[in-house]
């Protein structure tokens, strides 16, 4: 199983673009550091079946009502997205 960085988990509260708080240990951790095993992944577009795209940082949301379909980016947090469908 692929290792998660802190910023890809739900046990992390971002302080800024570089670091955040591990909500389980209360430690300040780097956003891109590897999270401990078992931390829950946070929903992001890159984990959604509605996301398509091959570009590293850009893609499309197939669930959007826009024509053409609206842009999306893999790194976007989707915890509040009602169209999110986990892969």
């Amino acid at each position, binding site marked *: 199983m692929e290792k998660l960085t802190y910023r890809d988990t739900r046990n992390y509260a971002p302080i*800024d*673009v570089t670091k955040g708080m591990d909500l389980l240990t209360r430690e300040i951790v780097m956003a891109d550091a590897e999270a401990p095993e078992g931390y829950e992944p946070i929903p992001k577009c890159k984990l959604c079946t509605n996301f398509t795209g091959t570009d590293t940082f850009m893609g499309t949301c197939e669930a959007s009502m826009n024509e053409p379909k609206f842009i999306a*980016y893999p790194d976007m*947090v989707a915890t509040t997205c009602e169209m999110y469908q986990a892969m």
Partner: protein
Amino acid sequence: MAKTLKSVLADAGIPMDFESGGQAPETLTDREITREPHPRVQKLKDIFMESLSSASNEFPYWYTREYMLHDSEVPVIRRAKALKSAFSHSTPVIFPGELLTMRKAPYVRGSFPMPWLSEGFYMAKEDEFYQEALKRGSASVDEHSKFGQGGGNVPQSFGKVISIAGKFGIRQEEVPALLKLAKLWFGKSVDDLGNKYEQMVPGYETKEKIMRNIVCMFDSGFTLPQGREVINYYYPLEYGFDGIIKIAKEMKAKVAGRADGDGMVGMNRLYNYEAVIHVIEGVQNWILNYAKEAARLEALETCARQKKEYREMAERLEWIAHNPPRTFIEAFQMIETVHIAALNEDAISGLAPGRIGQVLYPYFEQDIAAGRITEDEVIELLELDRVYKTSIDCFASVGVVGGVLSGNTFNTVSIGGLDKNGRSAVNRLEYLILEAGATNAMPQSTLALLYDEKLPEDFLMLAMEVIKTGAGYPAFMNTPIAQEFLVNQYGHEGMDSEEARAWAIGGCLETSPCTWKPLHLNGREYWIPGGAGQPTSVGVHFVSMPKVLELTLFNGIDQNTGEKVYEPHNRSLDTYEALEEQFKKYWKETVGVLTLTNNIQHDIWRKNNMAIFSSLLKPDCLDNGHLINELGYRYNATFNVESTGTITFVNSMAALKKMVYEDRELNLEEMKTALKENFGFRDAHEINSFSLADQEKRDDSDNRWDKLHFKALQSPKYGNDDHYADSILLEWENFFCPDCKNYESLYGHTMYPCQISVSTHGAMGSATIASPDGRLSGTTFADASLSAYPGTDKNGPFALLNSATVWDHSMSQNCQLNIKVHPSAINGHEGAKKLLDLTRAYMRKGGFHIQYNIVDSKVLKAAQEHPENYRDLMVRVAGFTQYWVEIGKGVQDELIARTEYEGV
């Protein structure tokens, strides 16, 4: 090594003494009073201190996606749906220990761009959009604006973080989407669309040149179109969000299909109420998402106390998402939420919470009486509020955020003033607000004390103790002067003396029209004050008086760029009166064209980007069905003309009058040559120092300008109770204040003067050559509008107060006087008493505003050399306090140079 001005003058036997009234101790002197916040607050403050300003795409992504979906909708509904989607999809972030929550974006200092307002300024410099912004002049000031390199600023990219707009960090993963979203607004943003139409204004070419040459600091309609106003929390507190939706639904039924005598916009009321419902539903979703997150964290939590706090937070949020608050903490969470929601609706600086001590008093009084809360718990919440308010960033261009705001967002809290019946409005909660300002000294909320003779002495003395912490607050503002201004300016819109008593400071120093509303809590009625007017500090932003003087002297040509800004006047200016007259002509031309172009920008804003959430808060929009764009607010005559560099101009005119026109020691051409030659000195940018004393002689200088320069420096100066210079200030104010009435805002009201510099005296000084008062090229102007130029006020503080009050302050919505005092000058109870006496003397003379920097200049110098040791050092800049390390170099230099009073 090149000689500095200070050493040159010392050699000539001319002291350049920046200490007044004695000598400071040789050792570094800390502030007399230092206090600590509650441990919980300290932990969150520590996190803030380590956090970087961070930008997110989330809000603009959902806004744009929804907006683009509804291109055939009525504009106000289209915007409302976009806002609803953006609020509904904002990711909640909560930290352990927080008792209040809700934030702008999913970071501690989170913010986001609003490309629907303006998108060119944060593109890469080589991008065509940025180049276009430069051509228009809307990005020129960025080149003269500097952020502090420390604190939470991200002035350079690093690792996976990209620096944008000189201050904010954004993850590299978000950058392609950021740029794509920006490009979707190309040609549609307020900036772009406004520019298309402002080009139709006769004189537009001059406007572009005015902006490019930094005669004016920035445009109004697409930069910070709202703010510098007092928010109004009344409707959510009285009715709750469900109650407001109920009102809107009932009103929809009443107005649907009816013009009710208003054939222009009467029918719009239906769409407006519908828009209000959409936006509130979005805000409710946002709050409920935070509630869900608090509940999720409760489930994860193992610490019993923290678990309970998460649960209570979730319950509070679920309650206030629908209902009016019942307790102090619910009410506090409600106003916190409403505040952030308003800030997320638009690019805003200066959204003042207003007199929250009086707004929250009903809950405080009843909770204390019922034993539901203690005063210590209230102070803890007030301390927490200071962490939240200081965390508020505003995403705008370098010129705006750095050059004007110094990174501050001016969420000013007002205390004191009078109640509806004209009695002192001070209550117990306001003492605690002052206490919390000392125990958790942070830049925001800065405190504005609305002074009146009726205010209790112990309250004023407590204010002095807080000032002694060096926090820079509270500032003192004069209630009777403000009331006189308000009745004069808004009388035709219904302002009377009772309503004027509700006033508060919007932004850092803007006298804002407010009103009283009856709040009901457990069968009791309380009249609470809140904002009732449109944004102030909109219209004509910061016009540089020294730059207009430079252009007057040089026949309309900017001496830095060589560009012809105005049509040449071709006059010999052989009398002082001719000079004065020509200056006024250029001034009027500048203000005239800027009024028209900014009116168009704001008109585009109101057509497509109108405030919906902020409007529903403000009386009387919910009653009349009109939002801000249709004059739904009670007071709409809020547009202004802002000036910068008043005292540098006054001193320059005094020098010209004395040396050229009266004593005839030299002719005007010789003075102009000296100015162009910068009196033989290097430009401030060459040595990267912006205070006068540090300027260095050019290596090839033959000292030919020394005598003239010395005389210029010693010519009559404002701030010494000297009629020669002060009469020039009087003459200017008697021209400027009434002249503003010659210009009309897009809302059909005449304008008024606004006289604060914020940080513009740094950037605008940077773009201006030497001035006849002896100030050198690129150095800052005198700060504020009534502060003396550093080192020139030699007759003590009372002489300065006399100079400042030579004119009637009630003619202007504000004016500003900053005084720097060494901590040792106000030691102990006696020192505090002296400071209060000085303040009271100024208020009694009719001064509108005064504030103090209690700091040892040596500490500032040490902080400039070793910023790593001074992360938490705060200073008063203009109408606001800021962390030293987040202020640009130019303003830092000016702060060090300000006259330091060793006794008061």
